[in-house]
């Protein structure tokens, strides 16, 4: 590689959080005119590198060089001034102010030191939006006029407006619509073509292989390898990430067994109050994994909520055919043996500031209750059993959930329902933001539940996992059923995509 | 383990608290007396105290400081401050100290204040204000402190040896005599309705929220007006439309504006009238005010210019002088001087002054404010204290504070 193009270099970068080693002597080089991908399981240290680079936190030891000079930013603000722009997953926009004000948050001085020239700000913001190809919005409008995915684009516009020389995109794409993804891919390519550097962090292998010029794999804080475009191969990358051969049974293997005819749940022509879902009917069989796929706004997440009695239905009903009762409240669903894993894990599935034990117990009180009391011995046994069974990595079940990694958080959510021994599980994006190792474990768990006769509805935006796991797949488009696929009839990715779009 | 320790600690604390609670209500700083206080009888304290004829009035007597707690509802109220100034003045002559509460708005505040006084070693409580009624008095005496004040609860507590008296404006020969607040309202209402005004309004203060003092005053005002009307006064007053309720606030000011804009030419208030003066000036009207208030700078200009034509005035030393005499007598071993002929606590008959001319007002103003003097001097006070004057009698005490405006002005 042409060393003149070197823009960022780290030498023996280390970062410890107490006894945990997040980065272990990582030396990496980032070049201009390239999109450098970073991949690794959760906790492998990829976000730690970029957060140190941007000034969010200092390294424990090691050196950094930016444009040949030692680089020690004391804050993100300083990092941004030097020319390192970051688009991160969680940051977000500020509600209550306009789009333009969000774009120039913290840099209002451009438009006056005391008095702000509002018109000029809106005009400039409009330019910033146009520059990333996000058109058709009024920069003076309140940020609330945009949906969550479009608000992400406002953040991107803000970062790009500052014209960074190094752009870090950290797992942003999962929060974006297809339109947003296209915009961000476009920005990355454009920056590369302008001879700037891009660092792209993602869980999505396919996306990385398609976009990146080189791909660096990290594992447990150690740089494993850097692959050039030609060397990128899915199996190789996975092997590097996990540090072992992935077993063949990544997904389930036995699709030969016929699914029982017994219908456990029936959805009769429902139209939801929110989202796209309308005129939708389906049946769920005992011992079946039913996949629900589609683009992110096709109404499938609303369907998940509807199955658990959590969605306002304007028409139609969800019926538990075993009892003949309607499912119209979460409490009712829970008592009938339903479980629900929400897509929005941190907000809807967990109490982040509560302990692992309390989170797991939350769905199990009625099972453990003896008269008016919960006996400490019972709860301890219950929680510890589940922590062991799902191998949740934690110091103790008393630890707060918020400090767990994404994969472990998801395991806690699963533990809630596994503990209740649910008969019907609705899983909305069960492997979202989860690293490969945990993913495999999840798939095995789901398959085991199926074999135990449980019925599972698996809603996912990842086609491969749907194809790999489901007996039957329903594809939604604009809120309505667009197609049905079975393994027997063949599940072809191209066919499915045709139906989706 | 930790839980067990915490439980044990909690138990220890509970026991400690129980142990601290006094079992005997008479155990307290002022250990008076089971001694039966026989009316006008011999002086049980006579031997304990030094022969009193040569007691110097330089703040060195009594030897041990007599601390007295004062329950107040508004420490910035001018009438109240007038009383406290008088006590300050007495403080130069006697070793007596007053501890004033914050503005009390709830029974629990009142109980807490009484407890604090007990802890601070107070000998007695002066109930200038009282929320919890006879309960507060019992709470005080059960901790061994004397209590003075609140005529309306007198029947409940008059036999309590630690309850030492209160004032009354009642004519004692009249069985159905009304209390002081009623009389203040009555005299004010009567005076205003007899002043030749066409249409008057009234501010009823705390009556709207059921404060007894204001209910009594309001009843008095209404009866006073009615009495004047019966005697031929043509002053109009309709309780349905002419009452400004409550204390200054949004709706109070709204009603005030309506009255100043209407055909009214005067008003009576059962508390001070300051919030009216500026609006009256702004309205440019000839508007008369009658109030229950005090002789102070705030009223002077408006008495002089004829706005305030009637002021019911509780002269601090006359109305509340007996507080000092009764509590100090009780605290220095002369509790007998606080008992009437029937063995009950003293009802000190006193007089409320109605200042209905600028001349009367200014006479009092000059005495109090210009000259800084009082109608009852420290020397006169000393004469009714058993510890200073062994010859003092209950009748002396009663006579000193029963002073009319005429008596005062001719002094």
């Amino acid at each position: 590689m042409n060393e003149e193009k070197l823009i960022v270099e780290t030498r023996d970068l280390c970062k410890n959080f107490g006894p945990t080693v997040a980065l272990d002597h990582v030396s990496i080089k980032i070049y201009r005119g390239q999109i450098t991908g970073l991949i690794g399981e959760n906790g492998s240290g990829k976000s730690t590198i970029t957060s140190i680079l941007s000034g969010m936190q200092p390294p424990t030891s090691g050196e950094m060089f930016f444009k040949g000079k030692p680089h020690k930013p004391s804050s993100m603000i300083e990092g941004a001034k030097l020319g390192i722009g970051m688009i991160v997953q969680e940051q977000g926009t500020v509600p209550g102010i306009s789009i333009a004000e969000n774009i120039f948050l913290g840099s209002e001085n451009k438009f006056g030191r005391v008095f702000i020239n509002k018109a000029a700000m809106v005009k400039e913001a409009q330019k910033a939006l146009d520059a990333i190809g996000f058109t058709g919005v009024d920069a003076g409008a309140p940020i609330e006029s945009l949906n969550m995915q479009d608000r992400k684009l406002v953040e991107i516009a803000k970062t790009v407006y500052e014209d960074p020389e190094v752009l870090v995109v950290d797992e942003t794409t999962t929060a974006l619509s297809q339109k947003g993804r296209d915009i961000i891919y476009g920005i990355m390519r454009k920056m590369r073509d302008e001879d700037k550097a891009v660092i792209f962090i993602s869980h999505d292998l396919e996306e990385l292989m398609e976009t990146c010029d080189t791909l660096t794999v990290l594992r447990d804080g150690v740089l494993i390898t850097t692959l050039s475009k030609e060397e990128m191969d899915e199996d190789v990358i996975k092997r590097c990430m996990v540090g072992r051969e992935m077993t063949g049974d990544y997904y389930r293997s036995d699709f030969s067994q016929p699914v029982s005819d017994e219908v456990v749940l029936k959805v009769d022509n429902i139209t939801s109050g929110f989202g796209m879902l309308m005129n939708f009917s389906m049946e769920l069989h005992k011992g079946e994994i039913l996949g629900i796929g589609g683009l992110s706004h096709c109404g499938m997440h609303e369907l998940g909520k509807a199955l658990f009695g959590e969605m306002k239905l304007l028409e139609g009903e969800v019926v538990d055919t075993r009892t003949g009762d309607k499912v119209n409240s979460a409490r009712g669903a829970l008592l009938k043996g339903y479980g629900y894993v929400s897509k929005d894990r941190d907000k809807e599935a967990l109490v982040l500031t509560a302990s692992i034990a309390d989170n797991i117990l939350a769905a199990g009180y009625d099972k453990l209750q003896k008269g008016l009391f919960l006996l400490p011995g019972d709860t301890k046994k219950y929680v510890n059993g589940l922590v062991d069974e799902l191998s949740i990595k934690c110091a103790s079940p008393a630890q707060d959930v918020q400090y767990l990694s994404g994969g472990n958080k998801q395991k806690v959510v699963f533990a809630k329902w596994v503990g209740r021994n649910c008969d019907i599980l609705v899983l909305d994006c069960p492997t979202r933001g989860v690293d490969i190792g945990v993913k495999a474990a999840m798939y095995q768990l789901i398959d085991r539940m199926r074999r135990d006769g449980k019925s599972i509805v698996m809603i996912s935006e990842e086609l491969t996992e749907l194809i790999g796991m489901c007996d039957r797949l329903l594809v939604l488009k604009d809120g309505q059923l667009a197609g049905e696929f079975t393994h027997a009839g063949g599940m072809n990715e191209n066919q499915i995509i045709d139906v989706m779009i | 383990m930790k839980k067990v320790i915490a439980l044990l600690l909690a138990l220890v604390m509970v026991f400690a608290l129980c142990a601290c609670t006094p079992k005997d209500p008479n155990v307290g700083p002022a250990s008076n007396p089971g001694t039966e206080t026989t009316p006008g009888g011999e002086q049980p304290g006579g031997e304990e105290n030094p022969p009193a004829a040569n007691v110097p009035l330089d703040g060195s007597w009594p030897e041990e400081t007599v601390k007295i707690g004062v329950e107040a509802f508004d420490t910035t109220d001018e009438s109240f401050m007038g009383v406290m100034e008088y006590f300050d003045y007495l403080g130069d002559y006697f070793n007596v100290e007053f501890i004033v509460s914050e503005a009390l708005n709830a029974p629990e505040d009142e109980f807490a204040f009484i407890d604090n006084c007990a802890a601070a070693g107070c000998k007695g409580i002066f109930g200038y204000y009282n929320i919890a009624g006879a309960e507060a008095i019992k709470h005080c005496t059960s901790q061994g402190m004397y209590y003075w004040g609140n005529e309306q609860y007198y029947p409940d507590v008059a036999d309590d040896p630690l309850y030492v008296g209160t004032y009354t404006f009642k004519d004692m020969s009249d069985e159905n005599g009304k209390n002081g607040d009623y009389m203040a309202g009555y005299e004010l209402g009567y005076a205003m309705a007899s002043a030749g005004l066409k249409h008057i309004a009234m501010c009823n203060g705390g009556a709207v929220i059921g404060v007894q003092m204001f209910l009594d005053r309001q009843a008095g005002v209404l009866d006073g007006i009615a009495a004047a009307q019966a005697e031929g006064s043509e002053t109009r007053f309709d309780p349905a439309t002419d009452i400004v309720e409550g204390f200054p606030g949004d709706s109070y000011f709204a009603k005030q504006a309506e009255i100043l804009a209407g055909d009214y030419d005067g008003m009576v208030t059962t508390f001070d009238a300051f919030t009216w003066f500026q609006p009256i000036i702004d309205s440019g009207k000839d508007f008369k005010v009658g109030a229950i208030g005090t002789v102070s700078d705030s009223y002077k200009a408006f008495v002089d210019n004829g706005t305030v034509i009637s002021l019911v005035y509780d002269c601090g030393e006359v109305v509340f002088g007996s507080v000092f005499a009764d509590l100090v007598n009780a605290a220095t071993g002369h509790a007998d001087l606080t008992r009437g002929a029937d063995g009950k606590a003293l009802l000190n008959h006193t007089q409320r002054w109605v200042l209905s001319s600028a001349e009367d007002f200014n006479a009092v103003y000059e005495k109090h404010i210009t000259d800084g003097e009082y109608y009852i001097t420290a020397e006169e006070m000393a004469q009714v204290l058993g510890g200073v004057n062994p010859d003092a009698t209950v009748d002396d005490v009663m006579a000193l504070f029963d002073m009319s405006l005429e008596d005062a002005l001719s002094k």
Partner: protein
Amino acid sequence: MKAKKIGKNIVMTLALPVIVYLFFFILCNATGHAGFGVGADLTTIIYNAVFAGLVAQAMAINLTTGRFDYAIGAELMLATIVGGNIAKNLGWGPAGLLLFVVAIAVALGLISGLVYVILGLPPMVISVGMAMIYEAIGYMYNDAKGIKAIGSPMLVFSRTANSLILTVIVLAVLVVIYDYTKIGYNRRALQGGQKIAVDVGIKEKNNAVYCYVIAGFMMGLAGCVYLSRNGVIAPDTGLGSSSYFMSAFLPMFIGGIFGKYSSYPIAIFMGAVVQAIITSGLQKMGVPNSVQTVINGAIVCLFLIYDSNSYKLVEVQMFKEKLAQAKAARRQTAAQ
């Protein structure tokens, strides 16, 4: 399009006061209480609106960023007592009153703000403490006599014309501060997303101090108006000074709801007007004081209920459209 939007904004801004005014006007006339809302009534309405409006501005600037400032009542009391007495003794007239009271109120606001920023304790705790300190100073100053300036020529700020001029100037300044300066801009950013705003370099502490200073300024003006109207202010103890800001809540809530049509400060002032009309109207009809308190409380509750449920109205409409859409889709499928 733009003209239409401006028109709508003006209508929405003025609608509530006008409706409430007409409501009481008709109600008063129908019940035989003529003369509502004119003459003395109007003067009172304007005074109450101006006073409550100023206090509500002071309260809102901090409360909307999560800082409940309990000390503003005590700031008003202390600044007016001290500043008023200085102006009275120097004989500087209305200008002196305004100058000293506002300057002292601003200084007290600054002290509150600095104490908050330096100690970093919860605002409620700090401000209760500051309120007690200010009250104690007010009580010690001038032998607890407060200020009595009845009849003084400096008391001009409650006259209708003057108080309206004052209001217009204050609103203009506030609108500029809120919508066109870095202070207002940063305040809104901090209000919406404290952490994000701080991460991009907005100085939360500086902004908090500015807000406290502006709140002090407003309370100083409110003090001048209050003193002009009543001529006296007595010191309070035991947090009694909180009574000065008790009328600020309804205007603030109304301001929060209608702010999007004009500007937050203007909407707050409209809220104060609404409150003053309601007070005056109830008074006119001879509603007893205690019932008025109940009604006022109920109105605050109603506004809060509306505020936190107004989205449901939108939802109902949304559901209707959705259902129609679903039916249309069904017809279409059936037709095929």
